[in-house]
């Protein structure tokens, strides 16, 4: 019996080079990662970052150039897909058009040579789970996008795989349906207890659904962590920029005391932040400051930085400002567009001389 928290997938030094072209395209430079049993794990990154290659390597549609993939302790890196207890939900669903919904869902079970009665029982159970029992005898081309999506899910879950792989399964659906399917997927994952590895380029999707996320770029894993860790303490510029919005500011460390660092941004402009990367005086680094963490304050407040408002954008829930500080340094900040006792919501006008406060805990020194 698998126990939650066991290592479901353990990947060591995995590398994939496509040799068919002249120089060979490096799709995956090197991946090391562990996915725990029962986890909802997401591979997140822009297109071409290697996330789909990594998924296909786990599924068995590609074989690695180097490295190992352990599934509950057994190296499966060189097994064909039909010998891996792992199933895939394809991006385009890949339902068999010549088979009915029920026959589609039964396909994997028949491949495992299960008894007829058992197959019928599981198919019914799976169709119930995705609320599509009434469509058992239809063909896939008679279904809507959302229905196909759920059949693809039922088909992949029917053989009870050790790990379920999902390749951008929601990307073909419209917004409303996508949000409904997110909750549905999460519910099914919790109900079945199966480990999910989910591939997406949509950061909101990743943050909302995942237990842990691996952010990927250029064939490498940039950071692995919970949604909070990834968003609150990005380890490098790519992660900080890719997940949410941020201000990236080049700084030089000018003073370190008791875990607080003084960073010089420009002549006479000092920001303070916590020392989470053990920097020393003289280090040149990049700071990440989330726009929603910067506040307008009264200019007389201690530590307030004087600035000038140069741009203002109304975006409904928020108002987004761009301010210029000393020496041409610009920062973006957001204020929630809430009703504040009759006070005009957009009281600041372009060109106003204002002041902002950047709280010590709100800035992150990035690793590179």
């Amino acid at each position, binding site marked *: 019996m698998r126990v939650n928290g066991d290592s479901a997938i353990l990947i060591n030094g995995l590398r994939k080079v496509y040799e*068919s072209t002249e120089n060979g395209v490096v799709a995956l430079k090197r991946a090391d990662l562990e996915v725990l049993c029962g986890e909802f794990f997401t591979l997140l990154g822009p297109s071409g970052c290697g996330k789909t290659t990594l998924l296909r390597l786990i*599924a*068995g*549609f590609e074989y690695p150039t180097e490295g190992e993939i352990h599934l509950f302790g057994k190296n499966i890196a060189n097994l*064909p*897909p*039909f010998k891996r207890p*792992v*199933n*895939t939900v*394809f991006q*385009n669903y*890949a*339902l*068999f*058009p*010549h088979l009915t919904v029920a026959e589609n869902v039964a*396909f*994997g079970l028949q*491949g*495992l040579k299960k008894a007829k009665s058992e197959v019928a029982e599981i198919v019914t159970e799976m169709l119930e789970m995705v609320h599509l029992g009434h469509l058992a005898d239809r063909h896939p081309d008679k279904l809507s996008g959302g229905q196909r999506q759920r059949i693809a899910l039922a*088909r*992949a879950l029917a*053989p009870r795989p050790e790990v379920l792989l999902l390749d951008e399964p929601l990307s073909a659906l419209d917004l409303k349906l996508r949000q409904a399917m997110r909750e549905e997927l999460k519910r099914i994952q919790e109900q079945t207890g199966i480990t999910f590895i989910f591939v997406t380029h949509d950061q909101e999707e990743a943050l909302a659904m995942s237990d842990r996320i691996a952010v990927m770029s250029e064939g490498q894993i940039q950071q692995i962590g919970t949604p909070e860790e990834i968003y609150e303490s990005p380890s490098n510029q790519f992660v900080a920029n890719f997940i949410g919005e941020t201000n990236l500011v080049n700084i030089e460390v000018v003073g370190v005391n008791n875990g607080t660092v003084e960073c010089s941004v420009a002549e006479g402009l000092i920001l303070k932040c916590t020392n989470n990367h053990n920097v020393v005086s003289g280090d040149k680094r990049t700071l990440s400051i989330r726009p929603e963490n910067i506040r307008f304050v009264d200019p007389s407040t201690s530590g307030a930085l004087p600035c000038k408002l140069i741009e203002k954008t109304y975006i409904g829930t928020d108002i987004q400002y761009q301010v210029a500080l000393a020496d041409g340094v610009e920062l973006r900040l957001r204020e929630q567009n809430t009703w504040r006792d009759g006070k005009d919501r957009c009281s600041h006008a372009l060109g106003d001389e204002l002041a902002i406060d950047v709280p010590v805990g709100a800035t992150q020194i990035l690793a590179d």
Partner: protein
Amino acid sequence: MSFFKKSTRYEVEQFGGFGIFTLLFFIFLYAPIIILIIFSFNENSSATIWTGFSLDWYRTALENDGLRSSAWNSVFIATVAGGISTIIGTFAALSTSRRAKWKGKKATFGSIMLPLLLPEIVTGVALLAFFSAIGLSIGRGNLIIAHVLFCIPFSYLPIRARLDGMDDSLEQAAMDLYSNEWRAFFKVTLPLLMPGIVSGAMLAFIVSMDNFIISLLVAEAGSTTLPIFIFGMVRMGVTPDVNAVSTLILIVSVAIFSLAHLIERKR
């Protein structure tokens, strides 16, 4: 009234005289065939003057032993050669569109399609010389070999087109769902490929039935095909029994094509 009728879109029927040209075009296509069918029911032995309705020429044609045996010969050859070329065409299509890119892909595709472009007379003479050089003389066998040769591109094309239009993620899904290569092929690839295979087989059958030049060069005594026999009849002058035979062949061809179309539409 202007030359162009007012319309927001570009539509060809806006051009003046479009209807008349369309009509002339269809007359050009079908008038000779319709006249041929009409005169096959002529009572008179003339192929040009109508005197009255009769089915006599059909009886004459069907009672002609030479015609019957050559028709049977043609159907046999078309079935065997069409079948063999469809099997080869299926393998060729699978091996050209279901594997990673390799260097000679374009050249291979070209070589498979080349018999389509070669003048028939060249193929015919080459085969004749080749058969006599190796001393091969197995009657209908020679014709079947020759027909397989020029039928392959016709059966290959629709199968390959079907295969190219089929996403290979379906086969991946089958393999992912615990099917080895064989089960994936027989449960997924083959059923989905079937309409292409049926079209390929039909085309090959028709092309083989229809062939004249290569058959004439390669055929040995006693293995006459229907087109060769009809040609022999016409040399004596066009009689209405040739019209009757042609009408029968037309009916069979139309029936086969309609059947193929129905099969394809069903799935």
